[in-house]
């Protein structure tokens, strides 16, 4: 016993800065992962969306991502984190007052060996980007004030609840649903909300995708990919082999998905586009998100390869047929690839990687659990977004005037123009 004490005294200063169970390696990993996910939204997603949009509304598009980040950081601090990670209330939501305004988030988390406040930080970055993602569907026609209010409401009424179900000990967690880094919580959730909100808003006068700055799109997707390493590999919550699997899988799935989007375009129109390659990058990143820490590299390559053609079909064929104006294809890419990824996680989850077993390893039931998670998210997020949309319509109106749309939101809402070259 005396020896153990000696040991404690002696060895802590060597490996850890504080004698309190802190693992500086894990702490560093989660610090940098958090920073990476912030970088995904500001400026990654903002620029990706901005480059894809028309040049007369690029600044409004940038502003939507920026303002969502800022607002949701604060709502997350205010109550979002509690709703997601507070003590479970009936499997549906966390106790809203448990961590109200940061209350009681102190000390080292004994499970992860990093400060508890770092859990708050890492999860904050997820809440912010998920909200910002939705904006892609509604660019070019939505009132900025309305978007501000939407971000606040959605980040309190939709995101934390779904996060709670899956990650905060809610009913899907109890079912054993697998969602490593947020295929359901982030991408299906944002994708469905985006679809609903774009239906409520109606079509733009010129509902075409005419990217104003494709190098910016490549930059944005590169930043997103880089940040996604924090998003996916950081979701291991530890610098260990699972994190490494997540990083390798993220790389291989995304490569494979970029190639399959390219291939489809090459076959369909003989010209593989750079916008298509960037779209394949995002599709692959989304599809591997729920699976990143559960499947092996071969599984990740297959998931990536399958996801792009499905998303391509949605945005190139189905969207045109149904005529909804999901401007930058948030539903077509995040929603659809999120669904593909969530279900395939139930197929390819390999117990050697992280314990969880999918269909291929003798557990067909996992697929059903995954589908249940997908459906629950679709229903909740569609319904709530619809209600929030109606409220906003009543309170502020959703859409700018026709003239403001014609001249572009940059001039009419922000009084600026993007380029003076």
């Amino acid at each position, binding site marked *: 016993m005396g020896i153990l004490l000696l040991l404690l005294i002696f060895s802590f200063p060597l490996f850890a800065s504080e004698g309190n169970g802190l693992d500086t390696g894990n702490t560093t990993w989660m610090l940098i992962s958090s920073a990476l996910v912030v970088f995904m939204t500001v400026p990654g997603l903002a620029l990706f969306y901005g480059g894809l949009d028309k040049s007369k509304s690029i600044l409004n598009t940038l502003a939507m991502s920026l303002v969502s980040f800022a607002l949701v950081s604060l709502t997350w601090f205010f109550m979002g984190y509690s709703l997601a990670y507070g003590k479970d209330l009936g499997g549906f939501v966390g106790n809203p007052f448990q961590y109200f305004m940061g209350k009681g988030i102190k000390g080292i988390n004994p499970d992860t060996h990093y400060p508890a406040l770092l859990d708050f930080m890492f999860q904050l970055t997820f809440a912010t980007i998920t909200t910002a993602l939705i904006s892609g569907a509604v660019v070019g026609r939505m009132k900025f004030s309305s978007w501000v209010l939407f971000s606040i409401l959605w980040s309190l009424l939709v995101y934390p609840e779904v996060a709670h179900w899956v990650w905060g000990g809610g009913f899907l967690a109890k079912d054993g649903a697998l969602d490593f880094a947020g295929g359901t919580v982030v991408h299906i959730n944002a994708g469905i909300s985006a679809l609903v909100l774009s239906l409520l808003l109606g079509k733009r006068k010129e509902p*075409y*995708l*005419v990217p104003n700055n494709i190098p910016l799109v490549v930059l944005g997707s590169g930043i997103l990919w880089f940040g996604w390493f924090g998003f996916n590999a950081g979701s291991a919550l530890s610098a260990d082999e699972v994190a490494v699997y997540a990083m390798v899988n993220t790389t291989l799935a995304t490569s494979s998905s970029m190639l399959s989007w390219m291939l489809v*375009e090459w076959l369909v129109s003989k010209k593989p586009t750079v*916008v*298509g390659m960037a*779209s394949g990058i995002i599709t692959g990143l989304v599809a591997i998100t729920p699976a990143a820490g559960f499947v092996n590299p071969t599984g990740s390559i297959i998931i990536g390869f399958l996801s792009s053609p499905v998303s*391509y079909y949605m945005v*190139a064929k189905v969207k045109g047929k149904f005529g909804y104006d999901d401007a930058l294809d948030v539903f077509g890419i995040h929603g659809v690839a999120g669904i593909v990824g969530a279900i395939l996680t139930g197929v390819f989850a390999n117990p050697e990687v992280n314990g969880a077993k999918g269909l291929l390893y003798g557990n067909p039931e996992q697929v059903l659990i995954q589908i249940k998670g997908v459906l629950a998210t679709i229903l909740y997020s569609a319904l709530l977004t619809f209600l929030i949309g109606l409220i906003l319509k009543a309170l502020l109106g959703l859409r700018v005037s026709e003239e403001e749309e014609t001249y572009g939101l940059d001039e009419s809402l922000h009084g600026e123009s993007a380029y003076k070259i």
Partner: protein
Amino acid sequence: MKKVEAIIKPFKLDEVKDALAKIGVGGMTVTEVKGFGKQKGHTEIYRGMEYVVDLLPKVKIEVVVKDEEVEKVVETIIKTAQTGRVGDGKIFIIPVEDVIRIRTGERGEEAI
């Protein structure tokens, strides 16, 4: 005096400019324009949706010259800008009543 206004293919600009300089044209003004005509536009496809570009990049060269030089200029442009394919462009001859050089205030033919 006349203004010779030629709409040509952009990649022919340097050649035409040099040829005009060689025959003694002292000045010209160049504008990037877009042209619509017999030449068919091309299609850009973004995420499977076609976007038709029927206004094609062209370059407009304006040269103001004395009446007697018009033919030489026109011939030079035709010789250098011609590829023989649709979309080579047009030349318009427009009357000019006076020319003034801002630097000196000179007017008429010596101002060209």
